[in-house]
């Protein structure tokens, strides 16, 4: 959890969290301190949500600040707005913590410009899988309500949510905290200088949240602990599933090579993925020769190559949002694998994706002396390698 950079305020929640948040957003838009908001709205068919950028305050009533599911990873909305050009328009986006973390990661990758963005997050209880929502919105809403209240993602949530430990305040400009205090109010917590300034400018005539802050913190810590223990169990299982020569083959054996997992991934930003490019196309003659050598091959080619390549390309930036699993047409638990490997690769470089802590992307940086484990591998590979002794 990130620390507050200023005094939090409390919003009255007598009429519910959503109403109080909508009221705040309206006040913010009308104050003229921001030019537009990015919020989820229900699509006309009623069975999903879309990101809508709006400057018409009347539309805030149609917004669903806490949507039950996550159709398009929010970072993609931020990217489409700022990839080409940053502008003078100040826009605030209210998104789940993993969406904002992906947005921050994309800003390091040069795909999002946060200069005139206000990034806002809220305590996230989890989301229901997209497929469940689309196939039965009413049931999904009901299921969502249940864990939205407890803050503990259950079996109806996306599997990855139960093991997410970054579900509350991240490096956003403003965070809305309600875990453990929702009856008393919703905390509006500034997380950056920009957030603090904005709240100051708004001149909210509401109570100070200094008293509620520790209560909220304690609850978030409690929930973090719970989710950490789930995380350990899930990771153990994944480790077992993917280990060994056949591990990845087994997990991905149904993969049809559609690359949906990559195209919905917020941090896989390349327009033309290497694994869909001419450069990666297998020489057809070599492919048949390979088949002759083995008696046969499975097609389309290079599916495991694709997944391991993607792990190498982007696991350092994976925010464990679970979108890849949601988009897989053959129900492969892609995110379990990516999130597990991400934890290992990020740990190796003492890096955490989605933070705004001044640390550069690991592969853009090096120290002259680091990674003793790699030195050991190199030594071992030398003739008469020493480290066995």
């Amino acid at each position, binding site marked *: 959890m990130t620390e507050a950079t200023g005094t939090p305020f409390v919003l009255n929640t007598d009429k519910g969290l959503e109403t109080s948040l909508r009221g705040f957003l309206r006040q913010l838009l009308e104050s003229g301190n921001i030019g537009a908001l990015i919020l989820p*709205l229900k*699509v*006309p068919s009623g069975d999903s949500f*879309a990101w*809508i950028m*709006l400057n018409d305050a009347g539309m805030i009533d149609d917004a669903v600040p806490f949507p039950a599911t996550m159709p398009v990873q929010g970072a993609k909305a931020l990217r489409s707005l700022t990839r080409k050009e940053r502008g003078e328009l100040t826009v605030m986006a209210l998104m789940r913590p993993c969406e904002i973390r992906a947005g921050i990661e994309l800003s390091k990758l040069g795909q999002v410009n946060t200069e005139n963005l206000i990034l806002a997050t809220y305590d996230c209880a989890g989301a229901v899988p997209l497929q469940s929502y689309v196939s039965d919105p009413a049931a999904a809403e009901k299921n969502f309500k249940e864990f939205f209240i407890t803050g503990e993602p259950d079996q109806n949530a996306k599997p990855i949510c139960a093991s997410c430990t970054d579900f509350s305040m991240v490096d956003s400009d403003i965070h809305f905290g309600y875990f453990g205090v929702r009856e008393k109010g919703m905390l509006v917590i500034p997380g950056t200088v920009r957030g603090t300034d904005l709240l100051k400018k708004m001149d909210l005539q509401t109570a100070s949240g200094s008293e509620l802050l520790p209560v909220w913190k304690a609850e978030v810590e409690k929930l973090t602990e719970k989710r950490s223990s789930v995380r350990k169990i899930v990771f153990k299982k994944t480790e077992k599933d993917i280990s060994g020569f056949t591990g990845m083959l087994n997990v991905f054996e149904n993969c049809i090579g559609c690359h949906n997992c990559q195209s919905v991934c917020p941090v896989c930003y390349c327009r033309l993925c290497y694994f869909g490019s001419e450069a990666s196309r297998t020489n057809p003659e070599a492919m048949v020769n390979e088949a002759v050598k083995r008696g046969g091959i499975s097609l389309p080619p290079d599916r495991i190559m694709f997944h391991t390549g993607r792990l190498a390309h982007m696991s350092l930036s994976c925010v464990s949002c679970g979108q890849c699993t949601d988009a897989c047409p053959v129900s492969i638990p892609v995110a379990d694998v990516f999130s597990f490997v991400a934890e290992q690769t990020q740990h190796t470089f003492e890096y955490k994706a989605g933070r705004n802590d001044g640390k550069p992307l690991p592969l853009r940086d090096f120290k002259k002396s680091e990674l003793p484990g790699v030195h050991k591998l190199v030594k071992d590979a030398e003739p008469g390698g020493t480290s066995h002794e």
Partner: protein
Amino acid sequence: MNKEFTPRITSFLCKWCSYTGADLAGTSRLQYSTSIIPLQVMCSSRVDPVFLLKAYLSGSDGVLMGGCHPGDCHYETGNYHTRRRFALVKEVFDSLGLESARLKLSWISASEGPKFARVANEYTEEIRKLGENPTRKSIFL
């Protein structure tokens, strides 16, 4: 329909015929509809069908394609391709129940200033009757 409604008609006009025809209408001081927003293209076949879609989805009330008469294209066969693509886009519109009347193709030569003015005025009237393009206000596109 609202009297105030002034249609906007995005008009792709080829440099060699239709655009020159529009110019002639101007220099001949013929009055033609201010709804026409002319865009010069080298040949009508330069217009990717996606341009028509983009104009339509961005709220143009009408989209006009102007080219040389068949057989007269400066690039010989460009406008034959244009005609096929136009038929294709129209069919896509019809199949989706969208108003294909918001798309118009017209052959106007460099010397047909009066025809240009007539087409512009008639098409503007047609679009005025159709009313505003619903894409102008739709936020989920």
